[in-house]
């Protein structure tokens, strides 16, 4: 098998698995249908891991496997390029995908249709990150979006369909602008491949510069909606909070990051990429702070987690943008990119873990309100957890997101702040860390002993087994711990995969230095203080104002227009 066929198998295997799973629909419900569906899931989720292990030696040291789909001539067919970044994003996607699928066996949704669409989503992720063709990127983003619109309402929660619909409307209109940008760039350069566009734009005279800037602006702001950067985040909290827990984990963990890294692949080829990166990184750092304040004010447990996803994606965008600003072939830029990817990966692990463990807790107790739910450990024990595994999983995730050593969140956040030292982002991200600590103290209260004992939901009637939930939680917890403890092994590998061919990968940074540990102690102390301030009477008044701020549907479109115009203006001057 040729190497380019091997890497493209990461797209085709999940699709084959999805086709198998969907065919399970034709069998009468029972053992036969289940077997076919499980074979499909095995093909779609496990075989790609074997492929990735085989591809690994081929893409280290800045190598990439390039090819044209269908072996057509370059320039007319769809080109793809599988590099270290694509390998890393694939690992991210399949790890969380496997955990979430296992969880869905216990926590729902179940059925061949769910498995099929879930696998199609995995295939779309893989295709998005390796494509080298702008129109193909559009198609992949559409498939990713479509699968989410269908998966979100499968939770059958009140409002889930509306959340999915508002996501659909916002994202579909954004994709129209993406398509317009693609059209403009094709008209200017006569090419759809990233390299062709780069070469075409370099030849253009200054008269066409405005057109190329307008096209780039539309592409970037359409992707920014998908990534949910301030001020384009409005669709995310409802969609992520109301979808089934397993789907929330994938949406928050994987889906919002893939378009960002796919965008980096074209932006780092263009001279405008540095300016776009600079503006996006500032927006990202602001997002991190604003979203954490809103998260702190939330009442619904899963909505609180959803706002944290926005805040954490802010960290990633801040580092990602500075990597583009400095250029990925400089040591500083590379360090930023490694930080951005590691945080994306680790966030996928701990946020997935948090969504699953909090999801189990709210299912068992039947209560989502953080202010009312108490003594959840007792409820979990009532459900048959002799050791409160779900509680331990939650603590692991909460400590990781609050960046407590030696968990993985500490490593990636430290790497980001370390590489951004001396910029305004550093200050903003430090403030965001304090807010993260405070809001997770607030969320952890659902496990505290309280006078208000949560009602036990009648889960005894459910037909699905309980153990797959625990398996998924244990799997992600172990990965969170391993990601922190083995960081000195992981960081060199990641930086070797991300470094361009002629750049020396960064040596291991001293992450567990006294300075960093002291800073962590300060962050925790101020976070605790902030938590007490937030629970005081004036604090809760402020939080209520933040929580009940007016949010409307067309506000999303207005902020999209505003963000696009700001980006265009910034590029022009």
């Amino acid at each position: 098998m040729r190497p380019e066929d091997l890497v493209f198998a990461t797209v085709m295997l999940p699709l084959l698995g999805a086709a198998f799973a969907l065919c399970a629909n034709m069998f009468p419900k029972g053992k036969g249908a289940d077997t076919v569906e499980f074979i499909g899931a095995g093909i779609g989720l496990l075989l790609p891991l074997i492929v990735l292990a085989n591809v690994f030696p081929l893409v280290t040291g800045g190598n990439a496997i390039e090819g044209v789909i269908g072996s057509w001539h370059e320039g007319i067919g769809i080109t793809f390029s599988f590099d270290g970044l694509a390998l890393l994003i694939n690992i991210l996607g399949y790890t969380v995908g496997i955990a979430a699928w296992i969880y869905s066996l216990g926590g729902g949704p179940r059925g061949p249709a769910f498995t099929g669409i879930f696998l199609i989503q995995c295939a779309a992720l893989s295709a998005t990150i390796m494509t080298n063709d702008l129109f193909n990127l559009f198609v992949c983003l559409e498939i990713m979006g479509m699968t989410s619109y269908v998966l979100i309402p499968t939770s059958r929660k009140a409002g889930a369909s509306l959340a999915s619909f508002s996501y659909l409307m916002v994202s579909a209109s954004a994709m129209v602008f993406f398509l317009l940008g693609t059209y403009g760039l094709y008209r200017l350069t006569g090419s759809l491949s990233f390299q062709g566009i780069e070469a075409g734009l370099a030849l253009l005279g200054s008269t066409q510069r405005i057109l190329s800037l307008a096209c780039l602006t539309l592409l970037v702001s359409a992707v920014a909606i998908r990534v949910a950067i301030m001020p384009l985040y409005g669709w995310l909290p409802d969609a992520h909070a109301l979808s089934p827990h397993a789907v929330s984990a994938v949406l928050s963990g994987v889906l919002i990051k893939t378009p960002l890294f796919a965008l980096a692949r074209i932006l780092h080829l263009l001279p405008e990429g540095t300016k776009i990166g600079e503006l996006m990184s500032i927006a990202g750092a602001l997002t991190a702070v604003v979203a954490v304040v809103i998260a702190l004010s939330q009442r619904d447990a899963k909505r609180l987690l959803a706002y944290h996803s926005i805040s954490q994606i802010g960290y990633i965008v801040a580092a990602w943008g500075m990597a583009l600003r400095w250029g990925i072939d400089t040591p500083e830029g590379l360090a930023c990119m490694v930080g951005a990817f590691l945080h994306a990966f680790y966030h996928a692990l701990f946020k997935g873990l948090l969504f699953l463990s909090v999801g189990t807790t709210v299912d068992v107790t039947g209560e989502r309100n953080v202010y009312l739910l108490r003594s959840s450990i007792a409820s979990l024990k009532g459900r048959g957890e002799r050791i409160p595994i779900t509680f331990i999983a939650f603590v692991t995730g909460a400590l990781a997101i609050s960046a407590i050593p030696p968990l993985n969140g500490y490593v990636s956040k430290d790497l980001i702040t370390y590489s951004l030292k001396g910029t305004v982002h550093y200050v903003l991200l430090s403030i965001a860390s304090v807010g993260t600590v405070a809001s997770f103290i607030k969320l952890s209260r659902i496990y505290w002993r309280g006078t208000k004992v949560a009602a036990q939901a009648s889960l005894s009637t459910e037909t699905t087994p309980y153990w797959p939930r625990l398996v998924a939680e244990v799997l992600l917890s172990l990965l969170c711990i391993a990601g922190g403890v083995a960081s000195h092994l992981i960081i060199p590998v990641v930086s070797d995969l991300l470094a361009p061919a002629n750049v020396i990968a960064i040596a291991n940074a001293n992450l567990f230095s006294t300075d960093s540990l002291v800073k962590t102690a300060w962050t925790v102390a101020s976070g605790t203080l902030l938590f007490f301030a937030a629970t005081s009477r004036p604090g809760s008044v402020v939080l209520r104002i933040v929580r009940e701020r007016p949010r409307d549907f067309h506000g999303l479109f207005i902020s999209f227009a505003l963000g696009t115009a700001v980006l265009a203006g910034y590029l022009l001057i």
Partner: protein
Amino acid sequence: MNDGKTAWRNIRIFASLVLIGAVMAPIFLSDASWPVTARDYLMAQGQAESGAVNLVSAIYLGYRAFDTLGETIVLLIAVTGTLSLLARVESLVSPGPEDTSSPNAKGFSLSLEKRVSHALRTNLLEEVTGKVGPIVLLFGFYVMLYGHLSPGGGFQGGVIIASGIVFLALGNPYEDKSVLVRPAILGGMENIAFLLFILSAMSGVFLEEGFFGNPLAVSGTPEGFIILMNCIIGMKVGSSLAFMCIVMMGGANHD
């Protein structure tokens, strides 16, 4: 107070339209010359490489077949989503069992017709659609099979086939007569067509042509692959659209 709020909202919406318009204006006003490289290449090589006289099918089933797979997947997901939405709506609004058999149900049928089933249909409708259905099906197959030579192809042919199936369903008063109009059969056909699409897209790998490569590229009849793909897409589009229409007509209840 309320008027002020509305006015302020309208101002904001107007301003955002102006902003977006300003960003998009260069794209619409551009006088850049149209790129010709791809066009000239297709004129010179398209037919020889893909075997299709209709260069449109050479593009969407040859050069950019992967995008086409993406579009069929979008259709597949959209149908799945619509069906699950329909199932939920039906459970909310479906009338009780005594409602459906009511002889006084309001319909389009004439008073003399004395219909025993489907109050919303007429004898005229059933006669015409029942007779036209097979012809429409035949035309759909023509458009699908000749997609590589003349305008048409799997998507267009599939839509015509779907309308043929819907005609057949409308044209017989007892829906169990034709196997083709049973939702379970149509759903199965859709899934099998998707599986076939993936398998035929993978077939090139074993002949060193790569995924989506034409396994017949060196055989002298490369158009065979395009005909095969057109048939699979036609089957997929036809069955999924017909499936959705028949479920919307309430056919699933008779299953």
